[in-house]
């Protein structure tokens, strides 16, 4: 880790630390506030002036469970797991190839991959809807798994490529001279070295799929309803169920919270498509 040039000790460190903590507190306060709404009774929620202290209630949790929201939770998990697994299986060899080998049109092929990552999902949802309607893939698990490939496969190949580039090429060269086959080299050298990169990138793909709304809303929604899609459905004709929304929203946040604490070093690299070495 590079240190900054001026190394005046404690008093300055205290100052900068408190500035950073104050900033974080302000930024994170809304999340804390939403968390408190999970157990806030309705009358306290809408009170003017704002009520800070209240007797906690579980009514929102009860309603959410009664609405069968745990099925959305399961759907989200299944969908994200399956689509991420496909991305890893298909994308890992491609990322390795793009990092290691010369190919004709490599730049053009790679630009194509970038373009699929950058294209606005709204542009894709129209053709997907019509094609899926014809093929009977609307509101199916397979349909959404396919749709999630558009943003996650290209992202995965792009980011994993930057991990592949960090592998020392000498080991593979030595193995080639030893007469190892391509498959052996990949299985015994590349894959073990690449494992942490694969896990980090795959988990980010999982989170993107977990957070995805538009495809899940437009191409699924009834039989296959993910967690983000269940949130707007709590805006009912009798009014908005704020407490219940807070419950679902915080549930959607939990895996993300776990992931950022475990993967913080890799996240910067992932989100910046490998432009920054995390």
């Amino acid at each position, binding site marked *: 880790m590079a240190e900054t040039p001026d190394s005046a000790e404690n008093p300055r460190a205290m100052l900068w630390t408190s500035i950073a903590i104050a900033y974080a507190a302000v930024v994170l306060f809304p999340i804390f506030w939403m968390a408190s709404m999970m157990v806030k009774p309705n009358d306290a929620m*809408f009170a003017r002036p704002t009520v800070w202290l209240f007797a906690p209630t579980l009514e929102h949790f009860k309603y959410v469970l009664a609405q069968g929201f745990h099925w959305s939770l399961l759907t989200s998990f299944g969908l994200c797991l399956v689509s991420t697994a496909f991305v890893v299986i298909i994308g890992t060899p*491609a990322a390795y190839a793009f990092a290691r080998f010369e190919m004709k049109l490599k730049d053009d092929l790679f630009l194509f991959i*970038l373009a699929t990552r950058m294209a606005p*999902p709204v542009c*894709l949802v129209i*053709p997907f809807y019509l094609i899926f309607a014809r093929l009977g893939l609307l509101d199916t698990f397979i349909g959404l798994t*396919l749709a999630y490939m558009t943003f996650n496969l290209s992202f995965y190949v792009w980011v994993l490529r930057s991990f592949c580039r960090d592998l020392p090429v000498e080991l593979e060269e030595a193995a080639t001279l030893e007469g190892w086959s391509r498959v052996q080299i990949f299985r015994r050298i590349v894959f073990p070295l690449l494992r942490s990169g694969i896990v980090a990138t795959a988990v980010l793909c999982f989170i993107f799929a977990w957070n995805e*709304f538009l495809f899940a809303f437009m191409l699924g929604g009834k039989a296959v309803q993910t967690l983000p899609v269940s949130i707007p459905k709590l805006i009912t004709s009798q009014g908005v169920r704020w407490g219940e929304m807070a419950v679902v929203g915080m549930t959607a946040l939990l895996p993300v919270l776990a992931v950022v604490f475990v993967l913080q070093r890799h996240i910067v690299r992932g989100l910046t498509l490998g*432009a920054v070495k995390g």
Partner: protein
Amino acid sequence: MTSITEAMPANAARASRERFWYPYLLIAPTMITLTLVSLVPFIYTVYLSFHAAKFGRVTDFIGFDNYLHLLSDTRFWNSIGVALVFVGIAVPIEFMLGLVGALVLNQHVKGRSILIPLLFMPTMMAPIVVGLLWKIMLAGSWGLISYNVLERFHLIGQTSAFASPGLALYALVFVDIWQWTPFMMLAFFAGLQALPLGPYRAAAVDGANGVQVFFHITLPMLAPLLVVIGLLRLIDAFKVFDTVYILTGGGPGISTETPSILANKMTFEFWNIGEASALAVLVWIAFFVFCNIFYQVAKKRLNAF
């Protein structure tokens, strides 16, 4: 960049044959999948954009009529304007705040390993949950900020900022800044951490002050990264959909209707699929041009990329 096959001496004939097909075999599944889920839908969209397609029924070939109609539609130009205002205000502010924040983090801040994951929270949250969060904070009359700040200081009355035509877009800009400033900050911080120490030591020997060091050493070395991250954020900000969808749905009126929201309405509310496709194609072309620029810049300015 050297490849293994180039470095391999013996068995040249077999090696060159292998060199030819092996990489293509590895990328084939990805390319086939992406063609199916990206290129095919794109071609279908282009096809639809040249046809009269309403209510799911594709009828006549009408040439560029959808495009002409779109380009003469004030609502289309409004959506472009909305997106430009949104991106034009949000991204520069995120950029500046992010840079300042990164410089602060790069000082002697204790407990970074806890602070950094916490700061990542807004960026990693589902956009729909971010929307929900700010719907709560800025809800009319009872929202924490609506009541205690906006109303108390007579900024706006008992209404949500998202419901006020003059304010809604700026409220969305504010939400975007809240969500994405931490991303800029941590990306720039990682860049700062990766800078070599040598020039700083030299500057310390020469007795340069903090401002000089920043403008003559830090900024030039960080510049390529700043450009790439800035472009990446610009592209992503232009695509904004989820937060706008849940917070304003493009309203009040059309004051926050971005091209994404408009395309979505054209498809799933007006069922004018031909024109929606034309809009999608235009957006797609714009993005492809932008991606090309992004790729060239990234390749030239950041070897690591």
